[in-house]
């Protein structure tokens, strides 16, 4: 053994020593635990820290939130609040016609629900199509493929607030876009005070900000499809469109479902970048449920934590239902695929 190798081994042993020492200490109670509880007990032991963190930071706040939704008042401590049962839910659901927000007591909540519904449909569809198209292109042998993959993933690394601010500077009345329009001889437009353009900007910016993540999932799925299937199709002279519909899409379906479910959940929760970009305006045309909850619970001059909690629980229920539906569809797809 050379001197360098000896030194390397020595350093390795020195670094490992504290770990070995720690392991020898932990080993005694672990052995005892395994003997007493078997392998099932060991699984519980290793899961316990994670479950404790999940319980403290997710489950307990959820339960507390539920209690808040059954109280009223502006105080934050539960003991200072008045129990009102389902009154907050009744207030939120008090509506003559759910399709006409003007007939609802909490018309802003229903505005937010309608806006979120439209946003989810348009954004998830656009996100899926754009991510799929990008993944298909990046899966091909193009020049600078790694560079382009990094370029499309880069916005995912940005903070949503930074994303919102960048696009606000571009789209505001005295922003970059209007400067370009003006220099080209066009008439500058107030994009963020126009309902259609504000909505379009909200959808486009959120797609731009998150598509890199979904593209990556689809890219992984595309690379897992066996090459020989494409070679066989090519030998048979199958047209590219048919190859896409009959090979790529069915085999990509599990990844696609993951993308749709994740995009759907993310879209229902949309808040930060749109809040910074449009502030929910013009009027309330980009006011989404999470912003409504935030405003009512925290930002309003007179806060209403009970109403905000009730709204968040209703939103949570919608998310649970959507996820279950998506999973059900996914399982059916998998079973059908297995039968074929």
């Amino acid at each position, binding site marked *: 053994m050379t001197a360098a190798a000896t030194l390397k081994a020595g350093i390795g042993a020195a670094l490992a020593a504290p770990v070995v020492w720690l392991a020898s200490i932990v080993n005694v109670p672990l052995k005892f635990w395994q003997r007493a509880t078997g392998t099932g007990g060991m699984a519980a032991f290793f899961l316990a820290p994670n479950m404790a963190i999940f319980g403290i930071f997710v489950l307990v706040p959820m339960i507390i939130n539920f209690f808040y939704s059954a109280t009223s008042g502006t105080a934050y*401590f539960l003991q200072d609040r008045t129990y009102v049962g389902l009154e907050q839910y009744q207030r939120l659901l008090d509506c003559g016609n759910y399709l006409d927000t003007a007939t609802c007591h909490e018309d*802003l909540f229903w505005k937010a629900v309608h806006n979120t519904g439209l946003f989810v449909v348009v954004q998830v569809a656009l996100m899926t199509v754009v991510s799929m198209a990008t993944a298909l292109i990046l899966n091909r042998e193009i020049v600078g493929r790694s560079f382009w993959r990094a370029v499309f993933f880069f916005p995912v690394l940005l903070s949503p607030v930074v994303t919102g601010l960048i696009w606000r500077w571009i789209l505001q009345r005295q922003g970059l876009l209007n400067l370009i329009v003006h220099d080209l001889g066009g008439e500058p437009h*107030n994009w963020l005070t126009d*309902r259609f353009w504000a909505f379009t900007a909200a959808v486009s910016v959120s797609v731009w900000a998150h598509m890199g993540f979904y593209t990556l999932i689809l890219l992984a799925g595309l690379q897992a499809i066996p090459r020989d299937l494409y070679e066989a199709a090519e030998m048979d002279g199958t047209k590219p469109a048919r190859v896409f519909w009959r090979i790529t899409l069915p085999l990509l379906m599990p990844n696609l479902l993951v993308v749709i479910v994740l995009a759907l959940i993310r879209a229902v929760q949309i808040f930060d970048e749109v809040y910074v970009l449009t502030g929910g305006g013009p009027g309330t045309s980009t006011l989404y449920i999470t912003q409504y909850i935030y405003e009512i619970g925290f*930002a309003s001059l*007179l806060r209403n934590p009970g109403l905000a909690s009730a709204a968040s629980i209703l939103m949570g229920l919608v998310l649970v239902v959507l996820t279950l539906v998506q999973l059900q569809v996914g399982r059916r797809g998998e079973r059908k695929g297995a039968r074929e």
Partner: protein
Amino acid sequence: MNKTRTLLAALSVSLLASTSAFAGDVRIMWYSDGVEGDVIQDILNRFMKDNPDIHVTLDNVAYKVIQEQLPIQLEAGQGPDIARVTNIKELAQHWLDLRPLVADPKYWEDNFADRLDWMRPDGSNAIPGFMTQLTLTGGFANKTLFEQAGVPLPGDKATWDDWVKAAAEVAKSQQLPAAFAIDRSGHRISGPNVSFGANYIGPDGMPAKVDDGTKAFVGKLVDWTAKGLMLKDTWVSAAGSTYRAAADDFINAQIPFYYSGSWQVANLSTKIGDSFDWVATGSPCAIAGCSGVKGGAALVAIKYTKNPKDVAKVMDYLAREDVVKEFSERTLFLPAHKGVVDKGGLKWVSADKNVGPALDKFVKAAGETLPAADALPPWKWANAYFAALVTRVSQVMAGELSLDDAWGRIDQDIADKVAEAK
């Protein structure tokens, strides 16, 4: 062994230092509109030099933190020892009564009596703090733009219609995006509403339904926005009661007339420099008068402090007449100290020739506010009214609601908030 003990002791001390306040430690949560953060730090440095046993830490935070995070900290029985706040009345239950702690309660009563009701629960005689500045809503005009357009500045008793008409001529002549803007704030439109005869407070002290005064001005405002005379961005490009200032549009000479308030003087002076001349105009007139709304920021002691005596010492120092005078002169804020106001002779620290006349104009305009406006700062439900106005009026401007529907919604929003708070 000794070394280990020393290390453990040092560790314990540093842990304690990071989690609890020592006697002599005072934390102030502070926000700045202009240069007041630097000025107060300078004053506090002098205080600490004179009082070496007290260490004051000034936490400069964004205004949003004061508005959104401080109330939650206070509800949890935590927070700083002293805070600079604008939400003075609604959080009054969290302020410390300094009466038994300050050196001379009579001095506080004599000099701050007028405003103490703004910051204490109804019926209380507590001394929670003092106003670091008085503010008054009012207008600013870009004098240079008016001169370039050849349009004379409307006079002292000019109405809102006069100002909008003149500003529209300037905007047209100078090809500006709009004639004027008002900050997106219920507080800001309340002066004009009162000038048009509005009164938010019912005979029982509870919120009254939206009256003809409010309807008259808000109707005009919506109309001016639809015609492109008022800058649409400020009000329309947000939902809810979010605050938006239009100061940057005035600073960038995009609007010839801007309705905001006296606290903007330092901001305008710093950012405009000598780019153009500007003047404070006071509040335009209407059928009932030419009223703005008073307000301001208060420095209050928090009752959850662990060092009330030290807090009182700091507050006593900052409330001293000479300190208040210096603070006002250097920050260009209107003082709320009776002694300072009565003696007059404030020497505003600014080389900007626009500043002195602007502040003098606000001092003069402070005498023209109407009783219905003066009743708003200490009124518990003012914020409920302001929030409902902003939310619904901006919806009307965006074309989502009719004015008639908006009145009903405003009344309902306020009633809901009153019911929730009871």
